[in-house]
């Protein structure tokens, strides 16, 4: 579809929906509604929203949806670290009821026992999956859960009077960037550990970095390379030895469900992403859902309100006594809590372990296929198996052909497949990260690898084909400078009209 910007659909007088009118009895009492507002507050300029009939609005967005490659349509193994898995449709049906959508969080507990039970049950389930003692489901995404970890760490040390001294957080370069970023936002200095030659996080560098200034380590394991640090308990013990906390980013938990937990490695706190490991749909970039799980010593810091069980009843209570306060409104992303609960209940303990096993099998199978593609390589940990994903490199291809990983991504779009380079910085040169999860059949993994191999062939034989991609997308290659130059960027249609046409009207 070559669907115009919505402002171009404006047709004066058309209505998309009508609004409940003020009843005559109400007008009789309060008079003209607009007159209730003091003149100084009344809108002065015309509101330039477009006027469009209902069917045309619908059509516009349906067409845009068809121009969006949702995971449901794709073989979505190319967005490594994102754990793109099947979000079962039954869960969408289950949450689509006024019994959930039309609940208000201040209703009397008696009227919301069902949703409270599900929240409580998911807390219990997450206790089991993490091995931790207490759980909060309040955060709205993985990074906000990481922020909450940072906030808990800060509160913990503050309570002990060590907040002023412990100003450093240690992470690893292949942990998700939000660990570094949230720690920084919480006021910490961030020390980042790189891998040693083997590809495992460098134990020596870590020991040099840790000290009584360390507030916490905040690490992912397996890391975004798919490599599991077998020495993780050693790291945690080292942190504990200096009085630091150990915080576990479980964004990559999919491959270790039921295999190993934060508890076994001795972590003090950890978080999961409902929208990754636990299958809630990614929503074009949220809402997600975060789970924070902590040991007993941190439980008193958890935010409120909380759901607890009293006898057979589920009741809401305020925050814990030394709570960090609300990190987010009310009870978290409730639709995702119900979806995740449903997904876990469909699988049970054995099913979750099967998820992990097949995800890892798929990953190592795909690794075998990619390894054979000319120009692709698998840095680090040679000869070892990987867990949830693998960070690959097109270094050889780039050196041979000049075709970059980013360009390959644009060409993969022509094949109708997602592909993403990797988080910055590109420690692995020309990186790409594939994470097949448990959701894809062998045939689909074969097809994805075959498409990569085809693009590699193109890169060798006619690099310009790849370098001028996309060829079959709705749009062509965009001009990056338009996005980075303050004189040219346009974040809204009004800014675009102003900057490019000097007008308030449509160009």
């Amino acid at each position, binding site marked *: 579809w070559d669907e115009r910007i919505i402002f171009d659909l404006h047709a004066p007088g*058309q209505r*998309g929906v009508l609004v409940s009118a003020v009843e005559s009895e109400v007008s009789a009492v309060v008079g003209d509604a607009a007159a209730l507002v003091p003149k100084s507050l009344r809108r002065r300029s015309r509101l330039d929203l477009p006027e469009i009939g209902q069917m045309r*609005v619908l059509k516009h967005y349906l067409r845009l949806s068809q121009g969006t490659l949702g995971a449901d349509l794709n073989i979505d193994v190319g967005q490594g670290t*994102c754990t793109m898995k099947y979000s079962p449709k039954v869960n969408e049906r289950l949450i689509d009821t006024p019994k959930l959508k039309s609940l208000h969080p201040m209703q009397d507990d008696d009227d919301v026992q069902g949703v409270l039970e599900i929240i409580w049950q998911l807390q219990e389930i997450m206790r089991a999956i993490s091995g931790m003692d207490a759980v909060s489901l309040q955060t709205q995404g993985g990074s906000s859960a990481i922020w909450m970890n940072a906030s808990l760490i800060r509160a913990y040390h503050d309570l002990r009077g060590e907040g002023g001294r412990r100003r450093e957080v240690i992470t690893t370069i292949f942990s998700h960037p939000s660990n570094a970023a949230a720690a920084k936002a919480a006021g910490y200095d961030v020390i980042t550990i790189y891998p040693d030659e083997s590809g495992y996080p460098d134990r020596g560098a870590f020991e040099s970095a840790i000290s009584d200034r360390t507030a916490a380590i905040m690490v992912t394991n397996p890391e975004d390379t798919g490599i599991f640090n077998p020495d993780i308990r050693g790291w945690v013990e080292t942190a504990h030895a200096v009085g630091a906390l150990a915080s576990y980013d479980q964004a990559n938990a999919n491959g270790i469900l039921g295999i190993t937990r934060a508890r076994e490695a001795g972590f003090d706190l950890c978080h999961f992403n409902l929208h990754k490991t636990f299958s809630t749909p990614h929503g074009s970039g949220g809402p997600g859902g975060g789970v924070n799980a902590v040991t007993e010593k941190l439980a008193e810091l958890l935010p409120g309100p909380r759901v607890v069980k009293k006898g057979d009843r589920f009741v809401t209570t305020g925050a814990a006594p030394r709570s960090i306060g609300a990190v987010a409104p009310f009870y978290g992303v409730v639709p995702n809590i119900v979806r995740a609960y449903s997904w876990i209940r469909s699988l049970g303990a054995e099913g979750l372990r099967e998820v992990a096993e097949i995800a890892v099998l798929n990953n190592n199978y795909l690794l075998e296929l990619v390894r054979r593609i000319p120009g692709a390589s698998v840095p680090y940990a040679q000869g070892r*198996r990987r867990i949830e994903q693998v960070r690959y490199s097109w270094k050889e291809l780039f050196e041979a052909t000049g075709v970059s990983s980013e360009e390959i991504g644009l060409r993969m779009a022509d094949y109708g497949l997602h592909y993403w380079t990797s988080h910055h910085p590109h420690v692995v040169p020309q990186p790409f990260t594939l994470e097949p999860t448990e959701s894809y059949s062998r045939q689909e993994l074969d097809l994805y690898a075959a498409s990569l191999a085809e693009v590699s062939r193109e890169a060798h034989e006619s690099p310009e084909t790849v370098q001028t991609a996309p060829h079959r997308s709705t749009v062509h290659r965009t001009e990056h400078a*338009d996005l980075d130059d303050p004189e040219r960027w346009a974040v809204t249609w009004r800014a675009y009209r102003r900057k490019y046409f000097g007008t308030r009207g449509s160009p």
Partner: protein
Amino acid sequence: MPLSYVHPYIPNSASEVRQAMLDAINATSVEELFADVPEALRVQGALDLPPALPVEQDLARHVADLLSRNASTDERTSFLGFGVYRHSVPAVVDEVIGRSEFLTAYAGEPYDDHGRFQALFEYQSLMGELLGMDVVNVPTYDGYQAAATAVAMAGRITGRRRVLQLSDPHPHKLDKVRDFVSGFLSVETIPTSASVANISALPASLDDDVAAVWIETPSVRGSIEENLSEISQLAHAAGAIVVVGTEPLLYGVLEPPAGLGADIVTGEIQSLGLHQWFGGARGGFIALHDDPQFVMELPSRLFGLASTSVPGELGFGDVAYERTSFALREEGKEWVGTAAALWGIAAGVYLALMGPRGMRDIGETILARTAYAQRRVAAIPGARLSDPALHFREFCVEFESASAVDVVAATRRAQIDAGVVLDERSLLICVTEMTTREEIDRLADAIAAALGDVDAQNGARQ
């Protein structure tokens, strides 16, 4: 030990496939793939979880049974607000965000996800029109985060360390903001006067170390700040940034804060086409003028227009990506991650359906019904309004002698949830375009009856 059945969500667990794949990678067992996880770190036995319900009909029955224990606000007559509102959600909104494509997309490039980029750019643009500002973010988590980030931005931009808070914000939002900025900013509250800013107390606190003056309008009590223009002038004179938290439904009728001097405007989009979801559907907007100094301090993603290699064609992409934590890890501004994009798409659809006329109508309808409810309730003996401000959607009633908890309990017996108890004698009542005149009358009658009972009891006791 593989499952005894092939789960529909795990295609390759069919035993023949599993074996063929193991063969292909020269592994004798799946166990071998976990060689890097030492035995000491292994979970012993199965996780302690409730039994599996792999048959879809069993799962559906189980979850539906649980949810059937809830009584929704469609079944009761609800005057509950306090940050979560029962507004009408046009069916087209649900249809669009229920589409598999939008629902399950994530982080594709502008080429594979052109539609997602356009839908979110349009959301930003529609909000920009509503708010009269040129820059609006892809939604962050919620209005709490939006306010926290806005205040933090003001700190980074000014390099100052004090924040003056002049309204009655939602207490949890205040919590969040305090905690979020506690590493580098202190938030000081100047108590309100009659539920709006005490403008006369402002100058005494407003010094050249003030990063931001933070206003909430409507406040947690629904009162509209009438002196925003004057406050902005004072703040700007002191070199402070004006941060406003607000409600977008107002701006078909009211002049947006940008027109009254606000520098950063934030708030929630739940009222723009999102269901209540037990408080779990939120999205935070942060709107700015197109000033690079401000834009570069915003952590959220910003989708912008870009020309393409085809003349005249419009593409999309990330504006100023190098600000973000995706680009720079801890050197980026705060962080960016999965937030609330789908709700942003919903709000965009909502605004496109409403148009200027719909936004004006809904603003007027809610203002009128709020005023009507205020008058009905204020007329009840033993009840009075807590303040004389202009209110939108919410207002607070104070009982002379009855406890608010008792009033709520009494009205519940009439299937009415009368409001949120703010303190011993105060009740926060919320009406929207979904609340009919007849329901307001019933509420007033129920409160009157409850107060009458209390009086009777008090009389009996005396």
